[in-house]
């Protein structure tokens, strides 16, 4: 993704962003494993609850998010090549795709709420709401971050925001199959 590497670790980009990535993966990973442990006690209930989710819509949202990841990586590449106008356009595209993701999530949440599905409907839905809403909050934060770095489009800032955005992408590709597909 980048030419810039941390001098001591050799990691591309900002070291603090890697600390954040590891932390977020640990938090979401632990929550997903707890979810699967709880599933052992009521596999039929979890399957019935999962059948009420929109798998296809979530699949489309996965395409949207991985595409936004590509666009963010292209923004980093453009910023590193000092092509700031191009970097801004790619960042705007990534923000737009983040918006599409949130709109689709909003439609899904509205439908679930209309059907009376809440935090206490079933333990499946407790995890569903908490994990997907926490992830959606990260998407929103990432969109704001991408918007802020687009103002000056400096390579190091765009790269750090890109790392955050890829982390959001990474968490989703682990969360999506466990909550929606299994």
């Amino acid at each position, binding site marked *: *993704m*980048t030419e810039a*590497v941390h001098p001591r*670790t*050799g*990691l*591309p*980009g900002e070291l603090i962003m890697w600390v954040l*990535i590891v932390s977020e*993966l640990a938090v979401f*990973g632990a929550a*997903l*494993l707890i979810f*699967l*442990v709880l*599933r*052992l006690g009521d*596999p039929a209930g*979890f399957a019935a609850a999962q*059948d009420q989710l929109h*798998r*296809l819509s*979530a*699949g489309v949202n*996965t*395409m949207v998010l*991985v*595409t936004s*990841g*590509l666009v*963010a*990586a*292209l923004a980093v*590449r453009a910023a590193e090549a000092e092509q700031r106008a191009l970097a801004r356009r790619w960042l705007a595209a990534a923000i737009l795709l983040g918006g599409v993701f949130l709109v689709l999530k909003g439609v899904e949440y509205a439908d679930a709420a209309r059907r009376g599905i809440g935090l206490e409907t079933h333990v499946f839905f407790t995890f569903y709401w908490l994990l997907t809403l926490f992830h959606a909050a990260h998407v929103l934060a990432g969109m704001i971050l991408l918007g802020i770095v687009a103002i000056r489009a400096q390579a190091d800032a765009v790269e750090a925001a890109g*790392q955050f955005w*890829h982390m959001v*992408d*990474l968490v989703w*590709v*682990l969360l*999506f*199959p*466990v909550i*929606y*597909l*299994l």
Partner: protein
Amino acid sequence: MRPSDPLIRAWLALVALSALATGVSLLRPDAPPWAATVAGAAILVLAWLKARVILNRYLGLAGVPGARRGFGAGLGAFALAALVLYALG
């Protein structure tokens, strides 16, 4: 941007793996129990592959073998634990 660009190839792989996982999941309700379990395992393996693509290509770990192995081991442990818990259910 060319199709040979590593970023474009990574994106194509992610789209293909995501479509495959969703497709397998949509077909799973009509499958016999043993096939449904195999499908679930396949979905987890596909997720693990997608995570590796994002780490290696989007986040640039392809050029950092030590970190790539470390993240790979961590993700592999997660996927294996998830697979065991899923299969037990």
